[in-house]
């Protein structure tokens, strides 16, 4: 840049015509808030789950079935899975938004990630229900 005073700075401003009429989405904090709420829920749930897995780690499948058949464990597992997968989906969306710059590809990546997360949730919820009613 030879002479800084001669530089046209119009590029620094967004066009009013582009900004006008877009308005507020009115849900700007929803993502942020959901991430915090799920994070707070995951603090006790993660502690409980790690303690449970340590207890089960040296035992055969029968012990896992017995553990999962207890309604309290099944309820906590469902809470963990919903909070964990929702929290995961919120975080991965932001990661994809940050690093995938081509709009079409970005949308495809987010939709694929959400579809996989939903399937993981359904598969794990069915499994928990099956454990809960198996005894």
């Amino acid at each position, binding site marked *: 840049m030879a002479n800084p005073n001669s*530089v046209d700075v119009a590029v*620094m401003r967004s066009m009013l015509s582009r900004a006008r009429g877009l308005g507020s989405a009115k849900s700007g904090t929803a993502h942020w808030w959901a991430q915090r709420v799920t994070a707070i829920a995951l603090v006790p749930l993660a502690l409980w789950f790690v303690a449970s897995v340590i207890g089960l780690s040296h035992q055969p*499948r029968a012990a896992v079935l017995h553990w999962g058949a207890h309604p309290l464990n099944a309820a906590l597992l469902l809470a963990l899975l919903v909070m964990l997968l929702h929290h995961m989906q919120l975080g991965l969306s932001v990661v994809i938004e940050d690093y995938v710059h081509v709009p079409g590809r970005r949308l495809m990546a987010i939709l694929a990630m959400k579809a996989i997360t939903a399937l993981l949730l359904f598969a794990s919820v069915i499994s928990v229900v099956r454990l809960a009613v198996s005894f």
Partner: protein
Amino acid sequence: MSDVREALMVGRGSTGKQVRRPLSPHLQVYRLPLTARLSILHRITGVGLAVGALVLVWWLVAAATSDGAYATVSAVLRSPIGYLALFAWSVALWYHFCNGLRHLGWDFGHGLDLAGARRSNMFVLAGTAVLTVLTWLIALAAQ
């Protein structure tokens, strides 16, 4: 103007004079401070834990399916690579856990100054180390 990138570097100083804006930290040459390293580590561990969530669901589905399916998961997780992955996930989990608590503290306005951030750096690192060691001591003692 020779380059569009130059146009993006133009700003105005407090006196109104046009200035060339300072360059933001250049990731290849700028030595990131600890707070910045821990910040990106939160995202890296989060993505790693998402992979761990896949295995968690696999474990649950296998437990609900059959003895054979459960034996397969057990064998994979008890292989050397399985133990390595479990160890990595435990570190990632406790790091994300401790740093997540720090983020919640920041959300309430606690420790947002540099001194506070440096103190919580140590809390996060020490918490991760203590919880990881504790997890594996209890887990290995139970075997």
